[in-house]
């Protein structure tokens, strides 16, 4: 099996360090696709507070990372998701997918992000400058993006209302 790292942590991550770890000892990697999610401001937002379901989060992240390795023939995969209070402009999530060719690296990175947005048990609360806070609602277009990937994602996240 290729090297897979999944972590949930309050601390920042170091993209360069994680990329170096992913490449270490490998000589058939042609490219690493990456995505860094960032707290986007606007409307007086000052921070997000992220909570998750300890245990389930990590096991689900491991499953989807393994599944991405198999589906896209990855040579390695790293998924790190932060929790706790994160100010505007701070990185929240990092996905790295190493592959022989760039096409599968790009596809796998998008696949994992779509999955994280719709099937990983994290919840965000928005905290505003005036002291208000509110739970973020799920977005229909995230569900649509995840639906592109057919059976695998759907099976991983069957909904209550069925």
């Amino acid at each position, binding site marked *: 099996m290729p090297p897979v790292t999944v972590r949930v942590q309050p601390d920042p991550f170091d993209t360069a360090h994680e990329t170096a770890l992913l490449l270490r000892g490998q000589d058939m990697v042609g490219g690493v696709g990456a995505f860094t999610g960032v707290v986007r401001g606007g409307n007086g937002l000052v921070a997000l507070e992220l909570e998750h379901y300890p245990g389930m989060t990590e096991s689900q992240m491991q499953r989807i990372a393994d599944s991405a390795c198999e589906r896209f023939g990855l040579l390695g995969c790293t998924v790190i998701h932060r929790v706790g209070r994160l100010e505007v402009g701070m990185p929240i999530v990092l996905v790295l997918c190493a592959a022989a060719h760039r096409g599968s690296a790009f596809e796998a990175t998008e696949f994992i992000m779509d999955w994280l947005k719709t099937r990983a048990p994290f919840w965000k609360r928005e905290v505003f400058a005036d002291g208000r806070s509110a739970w973020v609602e*799920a977005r229909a277009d995230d569900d649509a993006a995840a639906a592109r990937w057919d059976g695998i994602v759907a099976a991983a996240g069957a909904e209550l209302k069925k």
Partner: protein
Amino acid sequence: MLHILYFAWLRDRLGRADETLPLPADARSVQDLITQLRARGGEYGAIFARPEQIRVAVNQRFATVAAPIAANDEIAFFPPVTGG
């Protein structure tokens, strides 16, 4: 005993993060448990009357209302996820 977990606004509104209760006598599925919780009335009644706004996991895997439940299961209720 069932271990029941609540996350995000379910936890806020119910005022608890988890509870432990015996497997109800007639409860065979998640739907049976939802029916019992709804019968408590109050915030439980309001929340579990609208299952379309809730997601559920049984033993840390997403599940449907039809999923069977058994003693010692961990059942989690939460809103649609918003990570990433």
